[in-house]
């Protein structure tokens, strides 16, 4: 590794390579909060740097793990088997914003929130809004196919990526996709690489599609006695011709937990609360908000409020945004799964989770994106308590089985990484997994790029929630 480090220093410069134990320790984790120490950290800034490093790594059979801001939830950015962590944060330029064609070229290390700020200043809109947008990178969002609350109307990261520049594990640089609204020439490598969790190549440039920025956003909040009524309202809204920008729900446990933290008078006796944003022209958004209020009332909402100012809207969202800090009152660690079920089956799933909570006695809170069936399932615990940890692991496994049973998927937006790898076969068939592995081998014959992700290692080196 020492000789290799010297060669890499020649490519990226001495200041951009480190093997100091202190530096390595800071690149040993991501938001999945496991520790796997790399042997070298490298900070490239140009496509040639990445290509040079990959060529060397391929020649010497050294493992490489690409990393953005390290804010992924499933361990995608950690060096499970050691090797080099390739930190992409120096790729932080917004190259072009083409207003006429609604297209932008961006380097992968750009913080998503910063990119949004820049395009919005020009009246443009990049909709994917993961809750980490203020600190995660666009490249990381692409690699994980990040979603967010606005997915219900605007889709997820994949729906905005038109093309990519990618360095293959063997060192070649490829361009995929188009810079146009349409394009069907050849296999869709772009879509294959989006969400591939850094296992197929290292993204060095992203071409994204933009939209015009909606003029206004209106927020409304509906309180229901019964979760079922809230769920029916959502289904009704979605079929009614008005598509809200976000439909978030909080169940009673989430309301209670958040109220205990915020003390703002949330309806803790309610079955569920919906938080709905609509956007568009001022007239259009007002009409849509009124229309949705009508549906919620007809479905038995006991209270519907439409925010009359930006401040009032922010106040309504405050509860939703406070869930995360509020949860930590129940335990120092969080197991956070992002299952998805068909929208209409949310009440069934939430009811089942309620039972699971009673049965296990674990601290569980669910909330999430009711509009698209994406449920954030959280268990709060102290990981050092082995008995509780084991119980939690069993609960997660049961949750996954139930999710599949209801026709859902194990991950809506976090990816598989290492935390969900042991459960891959619950959702995918043997043939599908085998095909995926052949695709991986076609890109990465030596298996040096981000090993141990998606496909569980034999021997259980990446067992769930263990470390």
């Amino acid at each position, binding site marked *: 590794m020492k000789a290799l480090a010297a060669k890499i220093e020649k490519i990226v410069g001495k200041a951009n390579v480190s093997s100091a*134990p202190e530096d390595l*320790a*800071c690149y040993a984790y991501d938001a999945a909060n496991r520790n796997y120490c790399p042997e070298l950290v490298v900070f490239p800034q140009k496509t040639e740097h990445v290509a040079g490093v990959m060529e060397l790594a391929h020649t010497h059979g050294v493992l490489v793990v690409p990393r953005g801001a390290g804010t992924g939830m499933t361990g995608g950015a950690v060096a499970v088997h050691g090797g080099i962590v390739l930190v992409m944060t120096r790729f932080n330029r917004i190259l072009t914003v083409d207003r006429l064609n609604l297209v932008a070229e961006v380097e992968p290390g750009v913080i998503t929130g910063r990119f949004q700020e820049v395009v919005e200043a020009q009246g443009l809109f990049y909709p994917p809004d993961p809750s980490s947008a203020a600190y995660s990178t666009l490249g990381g969002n692409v690699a994980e196919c990040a979603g967010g609350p606005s997915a219900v109307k605007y889709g997820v990261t994949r729906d905005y990526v038109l093309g990519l520049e990618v360095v293959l594990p063997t060192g070649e640089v490829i361009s995929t996709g188009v810079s146009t609204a349409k394009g069907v020439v050849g296999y869709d490598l772009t879509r294959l690489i989006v969400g591939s969790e850094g296992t197929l190549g290292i993204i060095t440039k992203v071409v994204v599609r933009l939209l015009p920025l909606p003029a206004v956003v209106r927020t409304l909040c509906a309180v229901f006695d019964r979760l079922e009524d809230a769920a029916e309202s959502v289904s009704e809204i979605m079929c009614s011709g008005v598509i809200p920008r976000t439909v978030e729900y909080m169940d009673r446990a989430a309301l209670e937990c958040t109220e205990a933290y915020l003390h703002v008078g949330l309806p803790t006796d309610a079955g569920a609360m919906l938080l709905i944003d609509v956007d568009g022209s001022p007239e259009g958004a007002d009409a849509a908000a009124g229309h949705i209020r009508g549906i919620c009332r007809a479905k038995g909402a006991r209270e519907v409020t439409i925010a009359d100012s930006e401040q009032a809207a922010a106040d309504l969202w405050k509860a939703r945004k406070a869930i995360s800090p509020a949860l930590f009152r129940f335990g*120092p660690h969080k197991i956070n799964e992002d299952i998805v079920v068909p929208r209409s089956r949310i009440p069934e799933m939430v009811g089942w989770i309620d039972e699971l909570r009673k049965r296990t006695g674990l601290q569980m809170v669910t909330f999430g994106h009711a509009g698209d069936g994406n449920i954030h399932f959280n268990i709060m615990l102290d990981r050092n308590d082995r008995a509780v940890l084991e119980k939690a692991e069993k609960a997660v496994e049961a949750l996954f089985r139930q999710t599949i049973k209801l026709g859902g998927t194990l991950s809506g937006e976090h990816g598989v990484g290492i935390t969900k790898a042991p459960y891959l076969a619950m959702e995918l068939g043997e043939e599908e997994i085998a095909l995926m592995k052949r695709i991986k081998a076609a890109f990465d014959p030596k298996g040096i790029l981000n090993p141990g992700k998606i496909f569980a290692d034999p021997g259980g080196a990446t067992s769930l929630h263990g470390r």
Partner: protein
Amino acid sequence: MRTPGVPLRFMDDKDDAKSCVRCGRCMAVCPVYGTTLREYDAPRGRLALLENLGRSGSGSKRLKEILSRCLLCGACGEVCAAGVDTVSILQAGRSRLFGDRGGPITGDVIARSEWETALSKKVVTKGGTLLQALICRRIPEASGLHLRFPLRFFIKRQTVPGLSEIPFMEEPKARKAAESESARVGLFVGCGANYIFPESARALVHILGRLGLSVAVPAEQECCGLPAYVSGNTPRAQALARKNIETFETAGVDTILTVCASCGAHLQGLPHLFVEGSSWHGRAQAVAEKHRDAMAFLVEQTGLSSLFRASRAEIEKGRPIRRVAYHDPCHLRITQGITDAPRRFLEMLPGVKLMETPHEGRCCGHGGGFNLTHFDVSMDILEKRMADLRQVSPELIVTGCTGCLLQFIEGVSRLGLEGAVRVLHPLVLAQQTLSQERG
């Protein structure tokens, strides 16, 4: 370092349940990470290192360097979902690694003032770090050695008259105030106001006088101890705290005012320096409870608005209204939770139009000794804040913190705006306003 993280060892027992989950939220607000984009400059990175270090670990040179690269602005703790008290943990880490060994954390400059020199009245810490450095560097200047920013800058500025003038505490007015026995209000001057910006302390005394309040300036007060504390020298910080506690107990005042956000933040945190339940802890608590930021205190005085109102028409007649940008010092906004009071104070001033700037609350990048030892990073952070401020084209940048003031003076100079933009303490602006009225 390869061992998986062990629980934090620098936390108080009561906080033991809270630990960093590495979500990354802090990275959105950390000024240092935002500039260098290196994980070891992110709050969660520093916490990871401290966790790995454990109670028995000793710090490497690299670790010390990393821990020194924190502004202690507290922005990370403010957004932390898990409620981790990041600043205290980092502080404890610094104290653990540097404290008893007396090694420097923030570089040679603080080392000189803190460790090599006996701490007398003349040897101040935060402000004095600068001053002493200036004095030290004068010799190299004379010998033709290269002088680097920011010291060369300060030597040339008229804003460092404290260097050659009498410190505030030795001015006749302050000396007289020291003897005031009837005063219910005491002033903790602090090094910045004593040596670098005495006009801010003078302004406060003046305004209090106009409100009919006499103020005591106890002569026996010392540096607040923040620079010693942040450089890991807790014993030194404790010694300074004890002296200040005794001084203000003797003064018998009900309220202790500060004009510098950093001094104020440190006085409010004094109890943390002592073991809970100990007598010093209780005495520190009593002092902390009496402390008020000068502006927060002033806006509550009923006479203040009428004082300014009386002269508004006269002052605004025939004079253009000045565009004033207020900057929130981290030690006021985050540590003391004060954002409204200074704005209300400024809005009362005749002839002032208060401008809200983009990214309100962003750090200026000074951070005490950070500015001296990590000057380039500090300037990169400053550049962003200057860009925010320039968007509203202010004629005045006002802020109530010694560090921020020094930083913006530097920022204005670097942009060549000296004639166009002035940097002032809000109290000084208020006093100037009041003197306009007279004539």
